[in-house]
């Protein structure tokens, strides 16, 4: 009986970057896991939470908790959505012990994608090949809230013929920040261009991250600057067969 | 109501505390006191100190060492008994404990002091103001020389703080930890030495027995 994992693809992957979600499914299935997609899923509520709308965030967070009731394992292709659930849902429900109990029961079973892969025993190969020079962008929540610095790099190290070059500004914020990207577009754009400079200095053909929101920001800035560097989600690299 | 009372009332109200209510004891700082050997401390100090370190075998060699460091410049020395005992006042060009201290310090090329202690880990000279050790001697002249017996070389700041719970008290109005020359990077982060304080610091470490006072 293969192990079942439920996936929470996140609204941005669902609507704008479905390939990243599909790649994640490919990787999980190749590892012999049974993937469950609960259709009722929508959003982790981070946009409302970050904008200060706690009531609205709570309502949507409750929907998440209901949707994934009883799921043994939930895998998420996003650092920021994962940390919203594992690090901030408790704040949202701090004044509601009954709801909080459900949240506390659920959150230990929620994993960011690379976190999850590295938790599997005997993982030494993904059968992946990606013969390109890439650089890696450390998305902020993944790096600072989930502590994922080595994890994605270890996984990239398992990919055949892949060359990883670190960029100087790897840990600097890309400037997305949710509504910040449109409310403070000038500053957001300037931050993105600093990342672009750093990416270009590596000579990489691809920039990889485990957050699609960051990739959207970087892709937009690279494209606007007329650069040929492509953006890929970590899952897409790990699903690649060459 | 006086401002003092206004502020204190606001503070108590903000904290939900009553007048005279006792506090909890404060959490402890981290004091890393490791006792290193004199040789180890000296080696460390020599490595860390941002200036020259001259080690002399005993107090009789101090005057010559200081004369060499003076390099023909005039100097003002504090009236500290240790300096007197080492014969600093007799060194050419030194004005020991001058009448017009301020003017003496403002015009001298070098200021010579003793020290309360030295800190090996950071290359620091610790001075404690006193009637015999005025503040301006180590501050106004462009060069500062401290003459210190080796037994006053401590491992680090933590050791000094654990030995000296009251850095300033009835006997001393000011303590200063001097770690290197005066410097600034305020313009384009370009390092310039000797902006207001001395641009050069030197230490003479004296081994051997205490000089007769």
């Amino acid at each position: 009986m293969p192990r079942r994992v439920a996936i929470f693809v996140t609204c941005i992957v669902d609507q704008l970057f479905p390939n990243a979600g599909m790649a994640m499914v490919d990787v999980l299935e190749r590892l012999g896991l049974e993937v469950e997609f609960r259709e009722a899923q929508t959003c982790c509520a981070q946009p409302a939470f970050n904008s200060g709308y706690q009531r609205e965030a709570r309502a949507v967070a409750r929907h998440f908790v209901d949707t994934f009731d009883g799921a043994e394992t939930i895998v998420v292709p996003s650092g920021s959505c994962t940390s919203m659930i594992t690090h901030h849902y408790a704040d949202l429900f701090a004044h509601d012990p009954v709801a909080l109990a459900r949240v506390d029961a659920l959150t230990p079973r929620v994993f960011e994608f690379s976190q999850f892969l590295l938790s599997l025993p005997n993982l030494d190969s993904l059968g992946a090949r990606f013969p390109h020079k890439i650089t890696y962008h450390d998305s902020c929540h993944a790096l600072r809230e989930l502590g994922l610095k080595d994890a994605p790099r270890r996984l990239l190290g398992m990919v055949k013929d892949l060359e990883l070059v670190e960029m100087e500004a790897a840990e600097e914020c890309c400037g997305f920040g949710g509504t910040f990207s449109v409310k403070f577009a000038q500053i957001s754009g300037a931050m993105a261009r600093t990342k672009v400079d750093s990416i270009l200095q590596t000579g990489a053909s691809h920039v990889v991250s485990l957050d699609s929101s960051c990739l959207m920001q970087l892709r937009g800035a690279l494209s606007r600057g007329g650069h040929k560097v492509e953006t890929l989600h970590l899952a897409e690299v790990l699903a690649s067969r060459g | 109501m006086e401002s003092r009372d206004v502020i204190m009332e606001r503070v108590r109200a903000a904290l939900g505390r009553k007048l005279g209510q006792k506090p909890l004891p404060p959490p402890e700082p981290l004091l890393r006191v490791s006792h290193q050997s004199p040789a180890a401390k000296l080696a460390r100090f020599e490595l860390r100190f941002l200036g020259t370190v001259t080690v002399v075998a005993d107090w009789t060699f101090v005057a010559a060492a200081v004369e060499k460091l003076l390099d023909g410049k005039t100097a003002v020395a504090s009236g500290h008994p240790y300096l007197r005992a080492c014969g600093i006042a007799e060194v050419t060009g030194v004005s020991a404990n001058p009448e017009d201290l301020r003017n003496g310090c403002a015009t001298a090329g070098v200021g010579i002091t003793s020290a309360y202690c030295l800190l090996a880990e950071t290359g620091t000279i610790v001075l404690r103001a006193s009637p015999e050790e005025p503040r301006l001697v180590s501050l106004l002249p462009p060069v500062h020389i401290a003459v210190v017996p080796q037994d006053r070389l401590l491992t680090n700041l933590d050791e000094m703080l654990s030995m000296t719970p009251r850095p300033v008290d009835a006997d001393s109005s000011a303590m200063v930890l001097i770690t290197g020359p005066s410097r600034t990077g305020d313009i384009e982060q370009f390092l310039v030495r000797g902006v207001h304080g001395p641009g050069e610091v030197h230490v003479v470490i004296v081994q051997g027995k205490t000089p007769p006072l």
Partner: protein
Amino acid sequence: MSAPETAIRKTLADANLQLAIYNNTGRFKENRRRAVAPDQLPEYEDLRTRAAAIKRHTLSFLDVYLLQLESAVEDSGGKVIWASTGEEAADFIVKLAKEREANLIVKSKSMTSEEIHLNDRLAHHELEAVETDLGEYILQLAGQRPFHIVAPAIHMTRNDVADIFTEKLGIEHDTVIENQAMTARRVLREKFLSAGIGITGANFLLADSGAVVIVENEGNARLTHSAPKVHVAIAGIEKVIPRARDLAVFLDLLGRSASGQALTSYTSIVTGPRRQGELDGPEEFYLVLLDAGRTKLLADPEQRESLQCIRCGACLNACPVYRKIGGHNYPWVYSGPIGKVITPSFQGKEKDTWLPFASSLCGACAEVCPVKIDIPGLLLKLRKELVTANPADRSAFQVWAWLMRRPGMYALAARIGRSLMGFNIGPLAAWRSERDLPAAPRKSFRELWKERKK
């Protein structure tokens, strides 16, 4: 109410300024990283935890420590002046200067004095207060406010300085930085030795010793508190720490966090006027304890932790937003992440409501804060408080929340949304003003999943 967009645009477009800000903060950032790395300071995390704990404790019992401080200051012959407002602090200093006939005053770096516009108030009474920290001196001549909490003139070049010195001091144009520093040394030396009052800030106030601790590299603070007959130290009430030995924790963190130095050139611990028999040092000492809004912050249980700040500037150097817009685009004297969180409490939460939102919540600030202030958490709390004032925005999120609880509706609305992505309206236009937007995929993940499972 809204962000200074034009000023920000100008800053972002100034290539030289951008380089100056990015490179200078970058250097501080790198020096800090090296200074707190495990090979240099293995106890770094432990020190941070203790520093945060000591600060938190002190704030929780601030009433006790302030009284202990006052008592200790008085025991060593000094006097404490309690100032409820900035005006009171300034008024005291004006009165003192007039009584002592001290028309010339020297000042060392004090952000607290910037906060209360001390120099302006003194000038109003024809009292000359000269800034002696090199960066602050240059800014004073130029009529500008600090650009950075620790390095006030990092936005200036040697050419800027040469221009200012020529214009204001009448000297020949000289772009050699060493010469510029020596000019300042020469001019200011005279002032130190003839000033009637020296005003310093304080990095820490020691409750058990009644002492003021001043951390610096130039020596101007030492001269300020040692040369004139009167020393006035001005400090916010939150600067207190319980004991001298607590410095073991704080000194280790301050220098390294600010500029990567284990200890700065000078750390002064001073208390009271000179002792009997001492040949120099002030004859009078006053400690001005400033409230000016701090008790309000103390009373706010959510925001109180921002009072733990030791003003090291590490958060500025780490902040990707600060590193783009620089210190002058923040509305108050304190810039960067810490400025963002304390400004609303001090200046009024209804002013500059854009400020708490001008952050991507990247968390770089919290990562480097030596006293573990959760700045992103504080920003979120401020945002929460502010949204009640924005009905239009709220309705949008209410609709959003309604949709997000109804998967069918969400999927439909999203499909419609995707079809409109090509249009250039509202947030789409704002996005496209700076970067491209990808074309919407034809099928969403859930649609692809359905097909896959057939």
